[in-house]
């Protein structure tokens, strides 16, 4: 017996990822909560049964997260070199 449909679980995942990602203040927490949001997007695409698109879009969100983390580390290194980071 299925108590909850899969798209409703995806809706919960997306809402939690969005609210949590916007209200966090540390950048690493924001990036991780937006990874939850990307997982919700992949789940919604998989509900439409476009599994090839789900494969490609999961790779795209992964690349975006890697780029954001590299840029975050570079920015923190520059701030630490300038002495602004406590």
């Amino acid at each position, binding site marked *: 017996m299925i108590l909850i*449909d899969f798209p409703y679980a995806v*809706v919960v995942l997306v809402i939690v990822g969005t609210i949590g990602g916007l209200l966090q203040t540390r950048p690493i927490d924001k990036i991780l909560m937006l990874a939850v949001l990307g997982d919700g997007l992949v789940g919604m695409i998989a509900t439409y049964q476009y599994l090839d698109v789900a494969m490609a879009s999961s790779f795209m969100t992964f690349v975006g997260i890697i780029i954001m983390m590299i840029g975050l580390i570079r920015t923190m290194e*520059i701030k630490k070199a300038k002495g602004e980071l406590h």
Partner: protein
Amino acid sequence: MLSPTETLPWITFYLGITLLIIGSLGVVFGPKASKEPIIRIINLTAANNGIALIFLSYNYTLAVLTILSVNAMFDILVFRVIIRLEEMEALY
């Protein structure tokens, strides 16, 4: 069960609009968004995922893939600009 031709695009469309509104308000008024530009760029991802959900509700899968990959390219460009401005100390 949900019907895949009526209820599921409805849910996806209104979820996308909700993400778009919340993400836009987060970009403008988010916590510490005016102090650090990285936080503003990270908040922009939520609005972009909302646009991808709206495209998905119309079954345009190529548009979904295109906007996700363009989001990655936009992140590359904007992070390079932010890093250069931090090096030049011209950000504030």
